[in-house]
Structures are given as structure tokens and as C-alpha cells.
């Protein structure tokens, strides 16, 4: 049971960081940016490269996050702002195309082989029968702190108020003197940082591969939609729901039903479980589980 909770927490924070970024950017510019998952891979790749150059992982990770945040802003200004004038569907397709360009760049730079950060030997810590490693613990704590910091910014600062005002009614926000373009770019910057942090976290616990981002695409969209697209903290809860579904389906022993001692759903079907859940929830609550400040397109 404890192991189940730990597995859910690990998976949740991986999903939540990127899903929150996706949802909060959506709340401001009204299109789901597919490229965001590739920012996660970029973050992991840059951090890996910097570590290979001899920087300590913490420094490499920080630099990578800032770099990815900057890339996100530049791409937003150069590409997405222009595409958005043609409509949100166009912008979304543009972001899909851009993420394919990213995939190609990853294959050329990092190659098809998964790679790993240089890390110390990491024996398991045992806690009430459950096992985890200190890398997992550190990564989860950092991610949780990042989510908490984002929540503080959103609800306790002027910037957060401006963000929420812009999300609720951009015309009115502009009318009251809020520079909505600047607010949007700050949020894009933060979403890039969180995506990079998510990518680094996933790679520290497992491996970095060129396909990391695209593999996360569907569960992250599911988490963001479950949380009510545009609702940043709803996305975090959506991530928990998806993580529970995925972990549950691979942990339940179906053996007794068919008269065998052990029969498990193959782990590759875990994602399918989260989609089934998504479809059911959308049938019952078409706007997601949690109330959103934004109505979907």
C-alpha cells in the first residue's frame, strides 16, 4: 500500500509540473501548446549536456531550466503570437508541427539511444515495506516545491492577480492597465521552467530519451483536461487522478478471476487506462473535474 502511494506520488509530480504549465498558458492564450512536452525533453537534454561538460547536476539543471524558459518566450513571440492571430486551432497545429521539428533535432543531437545522468550508486531506502531512492525523494521534493511556488505566485502576488485577471477577461484586464502581453510572456517563461524541471526529474529517476516528451503528451493532456483546461491547480489534481489510474491498473492482480495465481495488465497498457478514465469523466463532466475560470474553446 505504501509502495502504491509512493509510486503514485512519483508519477503525479512528473505529470503535474508539465500539466500545470500547459493549463496556465492555455488560460491566457487559449490554445494547448503541444510543444510544451518537447520543452521537457529539451530541459533534460541541455542539463545532460551541461553535466557532461563538468557542471554539477544542480547548476546544470538550473541553467537548463532558465534556458528552456527563454526558448519558450522566444518561440511564443516569434511563432505563436503570429499564429494566434489566425485562430487557436491554427496555433495548436503549428505547435504540433514545431514539436516534430524538436523531435528531429533531438534525434540528431542526442541520437536514438536513451541516456542517463551521471549519478552515484543509489541503493533503496526501505520505509514501511516500501522502497524508494534518495534521487527519487530529492526529485519529488524539488518538484513539489516548484508547484507550491507557482501556486504562491498565482494567488499571493500582483503578478498572479494580473494573470488571473487576464485569464478571466483579457479586454477588461487591458482596460485596467495590465500589460497582458508581458503577463503572458512571464507565464510562458514559468511554464518553460516547469516543463524543463519535469523533464529533468523524469530523466533523473529513469532515462532521458528523444521520445520522452512525445510519450508524455497524452497523459499530460489527459491530466490538464481532467483538471479543466485553464485551471492550473486543477491540472495538478488531474495529474494525481491519472497517476492513480495508471498505477492501479498495473498493480491489480487479475489472477484469481481466471483461476491463476498471478495475472497482470501489461505495464504498456497503463496509458490506455488513463484514457478510458478521461473518456468516462468527459462524458459525465464535459468541462473536467474541477471548475475552470476559462470556458474551453
Amino acid at each position, binding site marked *: 500500500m505504501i*509502495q502504491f502511494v509512493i*509510486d503514485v506520488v512519483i508519477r503525479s509530480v512528473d505529470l503535474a509540473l508539465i500539466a500545470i504549465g500547459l493549463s496556465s498558458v492555455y488560460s491566457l492564450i487559449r490554445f494547448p501548446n503541444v510543444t510544451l512536452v518537447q520543452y521537457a525533453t529539451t530541459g533534460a537534454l541541455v542539463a545532460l549536456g551541461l553535466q557532461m561538460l563538468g557542471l554539477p547536476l544542480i547548476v546544470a539543471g538550473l541553467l537548463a531550466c532558465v534556458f528552456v524558459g527563454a526558448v519558450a518566450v522566444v518561440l511564443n513571440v516569434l511563432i505563436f503570437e503570429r499564429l494566434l492571430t489566425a485562430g487557436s486551432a491554427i496555433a495548436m497545429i503549428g505547435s504540433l508541427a514545431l514539436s516534430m521539428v524538436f523531435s528531429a533535432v533531438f534525434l540528431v543531437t542526442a*541520437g*536514438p*539511444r*536513451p541516456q542517463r545522468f551521471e549519478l552515484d*550508486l*543509489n*541503493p*533503496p531506502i*526501505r520505509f514501511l515495506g516500501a*522502497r524508494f*531512492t534518495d534521487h527519487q525523494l530529492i526529485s519529488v521534493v524539488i518538484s513539489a516545491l516548484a508547484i507550491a511556488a507557482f501556486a504562491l505566485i498565482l494567488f499571493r502576488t500582483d503578478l498572479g492577480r494580473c494573470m488571473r485577471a487576464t485569464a478571466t477577461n483579457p479586454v477588461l484586464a487591458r482596460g485596467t492597465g495590465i500589460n497582458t502581453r508581458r503577463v503572458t510572456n512571464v507565464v510562458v517563461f514559468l511554464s518553460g521552467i516547469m516543463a524543463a524541471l519535469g523533464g529533468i526529474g*523524469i*530523466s533523473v*529517476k*529513469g*532515462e*532521458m*530519451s528523444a*521520445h*520522452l516528451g512525445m*510519450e508524455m503528451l497524452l497523459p499530460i493532456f489527459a491530466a490538464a483536461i481532467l483538471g479543466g483546461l485553464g485551471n492550473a491547480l486543477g491540472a495538478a489534481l488531474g495529474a494525481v487522478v491519472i497517476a492513480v489510474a495508471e*498505477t492501479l491498473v*498495473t*498493480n491489480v*492482480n487479475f489472477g484469481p478471476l481466471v483461476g491463476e*495465481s*498471478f495475472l*497482470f495488465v*501489461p*505495464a*504498456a497498457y*497503463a496509458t490506455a487506462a488513463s484514457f478510458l478514465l478521461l473518456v468516462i469523466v468527459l462524458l459525465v463532466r464535459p468541462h473536467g473535474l474541477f471548475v475552470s475560470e476559462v470556458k474551453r474553446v
Partner: protein
Amino acid sequence: MRKLIVTAALLAATSIVAQAADVTIGAVLPLSGASATIGDDQRRGIELAVEEVNAAGGVLGGKLNVIVEDSGGRAPSALDAAKKLVTVDNVPAVIGEYSSGITIPVGQYLVQEKRVHLNIGSSSGLVRQLGEGSFSLIGLDNVSSGFAAQDVIDNGWKKAAVIAPNNAFGQGVVTQFEKAFTALGGEITTAILYTEGQTTYRRELQQLERGAPDVYVYSAYGREAATISREAFELGIGAGSSPWYAIYLSMCTSDSDPRFIQGQVGMDLNNIGANGQAYADAYQAKYGEGFRSSFNGYGYDAVKMLVAAIEKAGSAEPAAISAALVEVGADYEGATGPIVFDADGQRSKQPYEKLKIDDGIKPR
């Protein structure tokens, strides 16, 4: 008149060149992807054989060339590579691949194009069905899994959890091992076919653990096996009294961090035959290290057998090579031991050895 003489001389010259034409064969190997380490090791064996053949005067009076193409560890790229070798380079014979799931489509294509196919790394039983013109230099999985099952039982482990990749190779290993193991009185607690190329196998490992087996039997490709071994270590699975048993130990541990695989046991191809010592020495001399894996010798033997067949046939036509290979394979002593083809062109005898990891691969 002078012009005529020059032309005649040129004609004579070209005809001499044509008679002693170079022979070019092809190879499709995983030089990148999860099995890149093994693929490169296969390439080393081929490279050594080519150097040796050319130093000894080549084949049919000409030079021997081998064009090595990268499969990337993916069936579509492997097929593209094989098509390029057949249609552009027009090679009579192709050696390859490594993973059964890729060797089979490549072999099917070559058989259909009436070229000779030499399997040097795949052990799936399905390879047997490729048909005429396809030969295996390596023992197939009914033989290897039977050997592994007996070895596991002999160690006193009665309950086994099995994990292997979800492809032709892995399915073969799991079914054949299960068959042999239960026939010997053992019990399979959980058998998992994992999806290739994942960045984590934590979920699969936890499913395996639930059955509380005596031993974890696995067979996985280099990089994936490295991830499995590391995560098993991090979860503490296999650390206590239930060890890891690797089918093809050198394949499973080629990319693993030594700290995570210490104490694993397993079996592998006994890849050095009675007259393989000279080959082992040549390998050591050229690459400055012992064998990276158990698979390089098969590449070496494949080239040597092809050359023997071409010399015997006196021609580099695929049909002639194929017929001559049957004769050569009636009784051939290769670097990897005696290679004797059965009626399907598959190696009928394959020696194996029992190994363990104790600061490197050691006999057990």
C-alpha cells in the same frame, strides 16, 4: 593501327579485371539503438574475417568487400538497408541482423529476392521457417531455453519469474523456457513480455516481484537490460535470496553498470570452439580487449563460410553460393565450434556455457 592496339590492350585489361572482379557481400547490423554495443561487436568479427581473407589472397582472385549497413535496431530501417544492398549494390549474400524481430523480415525479403541470408545473432524458432537460401550459424531458442531451464533447476530454484522483450525473440524465450521449465517440475510465477524502448521498467519489475519467485529469469537487449538491472537494484529486487538469471548473459550485461549486476548468474553461447583460439588472439590484438560479447565470432564465421562456399562454387551467384553452403555446412569447423547445418540450414549443434558476474563475466 596504333589506336586499334590501344583498344585491344584496353579490352584485354578490362577482361582481366572482370575475371578477377571483387566480390561484395552485405551486412545489416544494429550499429545504433538498444543493441548498438552488440552490433558493433558483430561488425568487429566481420572486419577481422575480411582482413584475414584479403591478406590470404582474397576470393576468386579478387578482393572481398563487406558493406555494413546500420539497422538502427528498427525493422523498417533494416528492411531499407537490405533493399539498398540488394537493388543498389546487388550483393549475392547478406549477413544479419541481431534481434529476431528484425532478422525475420530481413530474411524474408532476402529469400524472396533469391539472395543468400546468413543469420548470425537471432535465436527465435521462427527463423527456421524462412526457407531455402537462409542459414543460421547460431543455435535456435528451443536449444538455448532448454539448457537454461535445466541449469535453473540444477541450482535448486523451483519458482521462476520471467521477463523478456515483446518481440519474436522474447516470445520464443518465454514460451520455450516455460515449456522446458514446467516439464522439469518447475513453476513459472509470472511471465512478462515488456514493450521495448521504455525509459523505465519499474512497473514490470513490481509485477514480477508479487509472485515471490526463487529466481528472476530475464533476457533483454543491452540498454534495456541495463535499465532493468539498475531499477531492480534500486527496488531491491533480486538482492536477497532470489538472484537474477540471464539467458545470454553477455547480451544482457553488455551495457550495464557493473555495480548493478554483481552476483547475477546465467548462460551464454560457448563462442570459442576447438580452433577458435587464433581468432580470440587476433581479436585481442586488433581491439586491445577481450571479447565484448559472445556474438562477434558468428560474424567472423559467416564471412569465412561464405568465402569457402564462393570458392567451392567458383562463382558469386546467389544460387551457386547457397548450394555450396549446404556442402560447406555438412562439416565446418568454425571459430565458434563445429557448425553443422540440419535439413533447414539451421545450426544443429550449439555449445553453451554457465557463467556468473563476479567483477566481470566468469565461468561458473
